[in-house]
């Protein structure tokens, strides 16, 4: 009854191709932004910001990045946290050696460096496909782990190998309270989401999806596989590099090389599997899921009244994670995004059953 497209006719191609063609969607999005920017900061506690919202925003950005490569272009990467590390260490060294740069410039440069490295590691994808490529990307993960732990220049010759950063400063505004961090990250995420949607709707996005669906046919249509694959690696690594820099500077504050290890890579992958591959909205769902689940599981023993050691909780987490991955792959391989789309379809018909 509410969610109908009746009467919303498009008379230009531009209006037909816009991001939110249905009026109700536009209203919903506007409302969501008002809540996100206005209401949440008033109601949320510091704890909520620090352990839920801030990690969610950054991981959503990283998940979008990974989704562009895996979900839209069909190239698997199970070592993507390596590129987050590249972004983080690049940002650290830029701030260290060129302190005059504005942090926004640092972010963009860190992203570009990550993009370049990503393209380099994407070169094997031109020859190697599928599962072979997946394992090769694992090599990127382990190589980066080693690089940032052993090459002392990256950590500024720190004895312990870990790295400290000072709070981000932007145009004289120091971003150090949880509230400020939240607003900053939210703005960055929205910008990057819009860009991702634009890329996916453009000819480069179609080239990616064509490579994913049938790469031989795509080439016959005139799509250059080298350009499509490497651009996917580049853009994906850019996003993930920026996310890495933000993760290090805004969320962690200080980190050791193992902060960007295989577990993080696998978590990113799980985010897009559960959230929905090939869907930007899915990246949000997946990130939210992965951030909320451990916190829920931590509270579970208390809520059920059963005492459990932290080690036990962590084991339980692994088990539930693993089971959920399998569950989602069996029941809804297109993830939460598909469930959301089905829900919207039902809403269109409501109150009629079909």
């Amino acid at each position, binding site marked *: 009854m509410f969610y109908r497209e009746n009467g919303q006719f498009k008379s230009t*191609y*531009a209006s037909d*191709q816009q991001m939110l063609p249905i009026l109700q969607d536009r209203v919903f999005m506007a409302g969501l932004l008002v809540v996100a920017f206005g209401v949440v900061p008033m109601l949320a506690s510091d704890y909520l910001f620090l352990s839920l919202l801030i990690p969610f925003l950054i991981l959503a950005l990283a998940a979008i990045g990974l989704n562009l490569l895996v979900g839209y272009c069909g190239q698997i990467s199970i070592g993507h946290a390596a590129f987050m590390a590249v972004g983080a260490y690049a940002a650290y060294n830029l701030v260290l050696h060129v302190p005059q740069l504005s942090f926004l410039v640092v972010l963009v440069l860190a992203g570009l460096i990550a993009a370049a490295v990503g393209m380099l590691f994407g070169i094997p994808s031109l020859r190697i496909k599928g599962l072979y490529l997946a394992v090769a990307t694992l090599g990127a993960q382990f190589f980066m782990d080693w690089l940032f732990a052993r090459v002392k220049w990256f950590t500024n010759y720190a004895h312990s190998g870990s790295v400290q950063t000072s709070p981000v400063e932007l145009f004289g505004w120091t971003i150090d309270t949880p509230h400020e961090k939240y607003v900053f990250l939210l703005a960055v995420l929205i910008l990057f989401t819009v*860009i991702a949607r*634009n*890329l996916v*709707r*453009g*000819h*480069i996005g*179609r*080239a990616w*999806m*064509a490579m*994913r*669906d*049938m790469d*031989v*046919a*795509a*080439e*016959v*249509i*005139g*799509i*250059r*596989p080298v350009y499509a694959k490497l*651009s996917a690696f580049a*853009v994906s690594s850019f996003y993930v590099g920026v996310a890495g820099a933000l993760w290090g500077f805004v969320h962690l504050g200080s980190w050791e090389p193992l902060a960007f290890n295989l577990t993080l890579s696998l978590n990113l992958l799980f985010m897009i599997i559960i959230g929905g591959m*090939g869907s930007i909205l899915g990246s949000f769902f997946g990130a939210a899921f992965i951030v909320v689940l451990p916190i829920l599981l931590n509270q579970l023993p208390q809520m059920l009244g059963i005492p459990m050691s932290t080690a036990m909780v962590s084991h339980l987490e692994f088990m539930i994670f693993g089971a959920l991955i399998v569950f989602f792959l069996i029941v809804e391989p297109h993830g939460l995004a598909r469930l959301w789309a089905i829900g919207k379809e039902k809403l269109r018909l409501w109150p009629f059953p079909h």
Partner: protein
Amino acid sequence: MAGAANERTRRVGEVILALDGVSLAFGGVQALKDVSFDVREHEVRAIIGPNGAGKSSMLNVINGVYHPQQGTIRYLGREYHDMDPHEVAVSGISRTFQNLALFKGMSVLDNIMTGRNLKMHSNILLQALRIGPALREEIEHREAVEGIIDFLEIQAYRKTAVGTLPYGLQKRVDLARALAMEPRVLLLDEPMAGMNIEEKQDMCRFILDVNDHYGTTIVLIEHDMGVVMDISDRVVVLDYGKKIGDGTPQEVRANQAVIDAYLGVSH
């Protein structure tokens, strides 16, 4: 019908595409043996032959998907034997596929828009912001694609996911995608396979319209003899990877070797 064929024969031009002594093998299997034939501009050239004769392989060789061990392909005066498929596409040869090869994850509109990809050149930054040249390009090519959608009468399906469409419509989308590339030579791999009489008539009409309207040279693999006799100007017959006939439909129909091949007479 004969009158229409006469009109076309008057319009047929010089040789635009030719295969010279092409041989192709996969491991131990010889798919094509020393095949040579040419295609004249604006004509409708049919390739026929029993199953497994190497017809699809021949199209794949022209497209650059397979690189022949021997022989070359001459197109617009240039000879090649190991061009990449996308280079061949850019030079003006497009095709449809026997098994569709549509992009299952995209809508009809997006599938056809991928056919315009080779004409879209706005850089990544402009696309990211979707302003200026990038936006204009999207709209301009959308218009061109809508023209093709009108031409093939699939307006009602433009936003549907291709995987959910019936087979006949999917074949039309495949054709639309190939047309979107604005080719000079269009290779059609069994465009009427699996269709009923009405669908076949529609498809014939579309193919002839494309040939008349845009002057596109058509090379088509087809099993339906009625269609071949009706719409093609010249025919090539393949059997076991070798050319066993080449000429007008009437000439080929009377060729004993061709008749033997179809009747399964060993030779």
